């Protein structure tokens, strides 16, 4: 199979390319990137006035399968991903059962093999059943195909156990992804602690509940020279702590999610439970710090933290609703609106945060259009405006806080391993 993508504006931060070029794909690899390629191809795609970039690597996605197929499945999530230019997702391990042993990972691998439309990588748990009591057999997780570990949704409270986890993860060659939250501080909080929690009469979650745990995890990882990745950074102090750790030479990377720079606590009007997210939407000052961090690389990556929930779990009292929002289908368009249009990042920088950096963090041969790289590509009509509509959501769950919002940047094609997996 060969595909020739003609006349697109090729964005490839790995090779510092931002130019109108052709891209030639032979089988599942990038074969050539050059001006006006004259070659026979089975499929020719006209990408005139479109962005041609490496497919997005979304390193924080809750697929909900196995266990909660009513919320999402590997098939529905990867279809939503394909529609949105995402060619690789990292599946978070808080499924039922959790990805805490080789057997469960085998089960998920089987489902992926049968039903996934894009690449799905597997994250195992740090502790058995994510209970924070006893480490999973990390070597076995690695052997069965996990590339990272995380107890996402919870943090390992016990310092000694977490230190042990970093050591074992390093030995096993696994990346440790930390959900940083001290539940002793966040307690029963449901939104950011501040005037807005006062106004709405809801329990608040302080910045400290996040950044104190960021500090601890960095300190523990540094102690044993392990690399760590901080998930869903939401507040200014976390950005500052991570930037300082990078300066000291700690092997720390981190991600934020589009809602942390596109929304603030002030958007939680009228108790919209789709805005109930953990960590919570923070203040304007925090959102500004997130954008600055994305610009100066204190923050490496943008990931969706796609967290599907059914309407039964969301269309209820705010205190009782589940935390989380879907994000696969809004991430790129919201990022274009908030980061490109507002001149925070240029296109090379955005693609770096969405694709190249996450690929590097995960150590995979993706996120670039280099010759020989996996042919995972998105073609985007970056100027095309559209409204995010509930009825067009492909994901099984519809809990998006961006429904009704006018955005920009429509995906025209998504190619995964040299195959067209989505065409608008």
């Amino acid at each position, binding site marked *: 199979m060969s595909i020739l993508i003609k006349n697109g504006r090729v964005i490839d931060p790995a090779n510092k390319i931002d130019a109108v070029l052709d891209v030639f794909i032979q089988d599942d690899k990038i074969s050539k990137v050059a001006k006006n390629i004259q070659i026979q191809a089975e499929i020719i795609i006209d990408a005139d006035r479109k962005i041609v970039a490496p497919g997005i690597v979304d390193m924080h996605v809750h697929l909900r399968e196995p266990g909660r197929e009513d919320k999402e499945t590997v098939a529905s999530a990867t279809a939503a991903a394909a529609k949105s230019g995402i060619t690789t997702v990292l599946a978070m391990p808080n499924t039922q059962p959790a990805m805490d042993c080789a057997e469960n990972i085998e089960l998920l691998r089987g489902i992926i093999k049968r039903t996934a439309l894009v690449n799905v990588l597997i994250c195992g748990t740090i502790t058995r059943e994510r209970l924070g009591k006893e480490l999973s057999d990390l070597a076995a997780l690695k052997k069965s195909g996990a590339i990272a570990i995380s107890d996402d949704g919870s943090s390992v409270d016990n310092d000694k156990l977490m230190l042990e986890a970093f050591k074992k993860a390093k030995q096993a060659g696994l990346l440790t992804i930390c959900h940083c939250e001290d539940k002793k501080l966040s307690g029963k909080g449901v939104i950011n602690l501040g*005037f807005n*929690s006062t106004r709405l*009469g809801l329990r608040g979650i302080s910045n400290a509940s996040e950044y104190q745990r960021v500090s601890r995890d960095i300190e523990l990882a540094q102690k044993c020279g392990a690399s760590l990745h901080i998930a869903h950074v939401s507040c200014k102090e976390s950005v500052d702590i991570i930037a300082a750790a990078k300066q000291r030479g700690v092997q720390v990377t981190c991600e934020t999610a589009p809602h942390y720079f596109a929304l603030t606590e002030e958007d939680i009007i009228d108790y919209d439970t789709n805005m109930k997210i953990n960590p919570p939407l923070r203040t304007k000052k925090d959102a500004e710090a997130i954008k600055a961090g994305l610009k100066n690389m204190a923050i490496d990556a943008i990931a969706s933290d796609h967290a599907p929930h059914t309407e039964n779990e969301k*269309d209820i*009292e705010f205190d009782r609703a589940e935390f989380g929002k879907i994000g696969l289908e809004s991430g790129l368009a919201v990022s274009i609106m908030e980061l490109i249009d507002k001149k925070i990042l240029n296109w090379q920088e955005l693609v770096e945060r969405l694709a190249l950096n996450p690929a590097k963090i995960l150590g995979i041969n993706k996120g670039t259009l280099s010759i020989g790289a996996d042919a995972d590509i998105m073609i985007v009509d970056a100027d095309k405006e559209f409204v995010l509509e509930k009825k067009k959501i492909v994901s099984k769950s519809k809990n998006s806080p961006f429904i009704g919002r006018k955005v920009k940047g429509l995906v025209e094609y998504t190619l995964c391993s040299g195959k067209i997996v989505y065409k608008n």
Partner: protein
Amino acid sequence: MLWTKKDLLGLEYLTAGEIELILATAESFKEVSTREIKKVPALRGKTAVNLFYEPSTRTRVSFEVAAKRLSADVINIATETSSVRKGETLIDTGKNIQALKADIIIMRHNCSGAANILARSLDISVVNAGDGWHEHPTQALLDIFTLKEKLGKIKGLNVAIVGDIAHSRVARSNIWGLTKLGAKVTLCAPEMLLPPGIEITGAKTSTNIDEVFQTASLKNYPHRHFEKHGHESFPAQLDYFKRFGITEERLAKAKKGIIVMHPGPINRGIEMSSGVADGESSVILEQVTNGIAIRMAVLFLVNQAREARR
């Protein structure tokens, strides 16, 4: 001024003009309760449903009396014995009540925002009778009504609100209502019972009650929910009474003509001494009487606005 809202969810959502309209309407309804036959036909043929997810006697009875004096039919749903116990969602319960062709739901709920969620899901009117720590608009309206009746005006008044501000919906509604009408509000509580950012509303804060009483014309006293919270995070009750309790000695040193209000039920000996609760500064029972007029006004206005939409 025209009332256009089918619901009353909180005083934060109202303009000063809308609050004044409720007060004026209540004034004209107050007289009804003094008649030989205490009834007007304003809501004849209408059905009001009291949907109380939290135990409440005084607010529920006050709404029931108000609705009946307007000739509405009133149905009380005790959630402990209804299908709510079987796990029915709030919105489903609301839709079922709507399907019975009820006109107004009066709801008390322990979750903040429950009334907002119900109101946006239904076409019938929703009146918030207290939701979590969020708002209790009719209580604040009757406080403001009583205050205006006693002192003649709201604008420029110094009002102290003493007690557990952080966990009080009554305090929040009073802060919004009073500041919108131009009163100067001071919140007086131990540090840990003042919620973050509250000064953004325009209210001042203080931890010294005696200082506040030098200038305040009124003290409005929200519940201290001793029964709802772990005692360990609160100052000991006796210690609280020493620092913040309203006593005859404190009132003697306060500004002349100060009045004392309380939404009830009173924690005698913790929040205030019995001498104060029953003393001549206290207008606590007048508040109860005025509550009927305020709730009649609210039920009347939301019903009218909803009917105007058709």
